[in-house]
C-alpha cells in the first residue's frame, strides 16, 4: 500500500510517500513561508523526483489536529482535493499520535506537547506495547486535549514516572518545570527530544496511518475534518456570555 502523507498542523510543512516497506520520499521544511505556498509545490517536487505516478497512491493521510486552525485546513483541503480527484480514500491522523510515532517502540512514556498559547498546550500521553507479531502498538493513556501547562505539570508530578517530552512547546514546559523544581524538588525526570526528533514529520504520520488503516479507520474524503480541540473565539465568547 502506498500512502501519501501531509503534515501542516504547525510551522513544519512535511510530505512523505510511504510504501509498505520503503520510505520512498520525505520532504520537510520549517520556514516562514505559508503552507499555502509550500505544500503543493513540495508534493509536486517529490512526485517528479521519484517519478511516482499520481494514481499509484492508495491512501492520502493527513494530520487532523490539533494545531493551527488555518494550517490544519490547508493540509486537509489539499488531502481532500487530491483524494477526490484520484478517487482514493483518506485517513485523518491525530497530530499528537503522529508526533509520538517519532519514537516508535520506545519504553518511555511519551508526552507530546504543542503550543496552544495563553498558557495552554495541546497534549496527550502514550506508551508503546509490544504485540505478538513483533510490532509495537501505540497505547493511549491520555487522549489529545487542551490543557494548562501548570495542570499538565501537576499531573506529571503526581504520576511520578519519567517522561519523554517532545513537540514545539518543549521549551515552555522546560522553563516552567525548572522553576517549579526549584520550589518543590520533585523527583521526576523529563527527557527532552533533540531537535531532529522534536518536530512533526510526514514519515511518522504515515507510519501511524498504517496502523490506523489496519484498524479500519479509512474514510471518504468528504468526511475528513479537522479536530481543533478548541471552539472558535466567537463560540467561546458566546458560551461564556450565556453562563
Amino acid at each position: 500500500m502506498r500512502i501519501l502523507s501531509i503534515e501542516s498542523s504547525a510551522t513544519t510543512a512535511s510530505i512523505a510517500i510511504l510504501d509498505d516497506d520503503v520510505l520512498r520520499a520525505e520532504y520537510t521544511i520549517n520556514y516562514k513561508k505559508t503552507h499555502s505556498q509550500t505544500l503543493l509545490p513540495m508534493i509536486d517536487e517529490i512526485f517528479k523526483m521519484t517519478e511516482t505516478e499520481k494514481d499509484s497512491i492508495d491512501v492520502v493521510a493527513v494530520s487532523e489536529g490539533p494545531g493551527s486552525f488555518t494550517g490544519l485546513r490547508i493540509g486537509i483541503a489539499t488531502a481532500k482535493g487530491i483524494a477526490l480527484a484520484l478517487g482514493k480514500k483518506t485517513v485523518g491522523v491525530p497530530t499528537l499520535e503522529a508526533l509520538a510515532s517519532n519514537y516508535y517502540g520506545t519504553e518511555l512514556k511519551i508526552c507530546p506537547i504543542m503550543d496552544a498559547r495563553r498558557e495552554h498546550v495541546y497534549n496527550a500521553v502514550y506508551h508503546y506495547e509490544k504485540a505478538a507479531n513483533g510490532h509495537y502498538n501505540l497505547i493511549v493513556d491520555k487522549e489529545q486535549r487542551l490543557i494548562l501547562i501548570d495542570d499538565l505539570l501537576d499531573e506529571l508530578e503526581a504520576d511520578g514516572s519519567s517522561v519523554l517530552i517532545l513537540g514545539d512547546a518543549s521549551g515552555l514546559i522546560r522553563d516552567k518545570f525548572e522553576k517549579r523544581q526549584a520550589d518543590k524538588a520533585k523527583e521526576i525526570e523529563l527527557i527532552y527530544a533533540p531537535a531532529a526528533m522534536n518536530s512533526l514529520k510526514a514519515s511518522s504520520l504515515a507510519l501511524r496511518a498504517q496502523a490506523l488503516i489496519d484498524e479500519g479507520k479509512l474514510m471518504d474524503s468528504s468526511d475528513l475534518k479537522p479536530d481543533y480541540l478548541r471552539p472558535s473565539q466567537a463560540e467561546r465568547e458566546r458560551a461564556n456570555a450565556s453562563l
Partner: protein
Amino acid sequence: MEKEVKILAIESSCDETAAAVVVNGRRVLSNVINTQIAIHTEYGGVVPEIASRKHIENINPVVIKALSDANLTFDDIDAIAVTYGPGLIGALLVGVAEAKALAWALDKPLVGVHHIEGHISANYIENPDLEPPFASLVVSGGHTHLVMVEEYGKYSIIGRTRDDAAGEAFDKVARAVGLGYPGGPKIDKLAREGNPDAIKFPVAKVSDSVYDFSFSGLKSAVLNYLNQAEMKGEEVNRADLVASFQKSVVDALVGHAMSLVDEKGLKKFAIAGGVASNSALREAMSKACEERGVKFYRPSPGLCTDNAVMIGSAAYYEYLAGTRHSWDLNAQANLQLGEKVEGVKR
C-alpha cells in the same frame, strides 16, 4: 465549431461554499451553493473562523454535486478555477487549497480569479450580447467599486468607497433598527412600506474625487437620528427611516454611475454584487439608464450574491488569455481590482 471549454469553479471567499461548471464562460451546467447565513445570523454577522470551519466540511460535497448536477466527471473538465481574493483569508484558503490539489492531481490548468471580476462577469451569464467595453458598479457587503471594463480581463477602477461599503452600511443600519443580519434584504423589504422622502439623510461627497463614495457619515446620521428620537422618547417609524436611508444610498450610487456614463458617453452599464439585488437600486438604475438610452444589465438576484458560476465565467476569459497559475498560488485577502498574481503564460 470552436472547442467547448468546461471550467469547474470554486468560490469560498466569505460565507458561501460554492462550486459550478460553466461552459465557455456563458453557459451554466451546474450551480451549487451551500450558504452559512443561518449560522452567522446567530452572531449578527459573518464570523471568519466559523465560516472557515464550515467551508472545510462542505467543500468536497459541493464539488461532487457540481459535477453530478452537470452530468460530468473530472475527465470532462478543462480547467479548475478558484477565487483567490479578496475576501476572508481563512475562508479563501480552503477553496484555494482544494482547487490547487484538484488541478494538480488531475493534471488540469489552474486559473485563479479575482472575486470582484467574478461579480462583474455574472452579467455575462444571462446576457449573451454583453461584451466589453462597458461600465459596472460593484456593490456588496465588502465592496463599492465603479469600474470600467475595457476588455475581457482588463479593469480600471474609476471610483471606490473611502470608508464603509454600501452593503456594510445596510448591515449596520439594519442592526441599529433591530432588523438583524443580513441587513440588505430586510431593509429592502421594510423600505417598501415606508416613505423614502420622510427624512433627509445627506450623503457626503468626497471632495477630491467625483467618483469616490463615502457611506460612514450617512450611517452615523441614521444612528444619531435614532439616538435623538430615543432621548426625546419619540417613536421612530422604522419603515420611513430605512426607506429614507436606502434612498440616500441609491441616489449616491446612481448619481456617480450616471456621471460616468454621461462623461464617457457609454452605451452599456452593468451592476453586480450582493447589493445589486436590492430592488430600489435596480429600479432607479434601470430608469436612469433608460432615460439616457443606455442598455442596463443586471444579474438575476441569485447570481448577484456570491456564487461559483461567476467565477467560472471570469475564469474562461482568463483561460483564453493564457493565464495558468502555479502550485504556489496563495490566497490574498486584500487583492485590489486590476491587481493580479501573474500566472504562467502557456
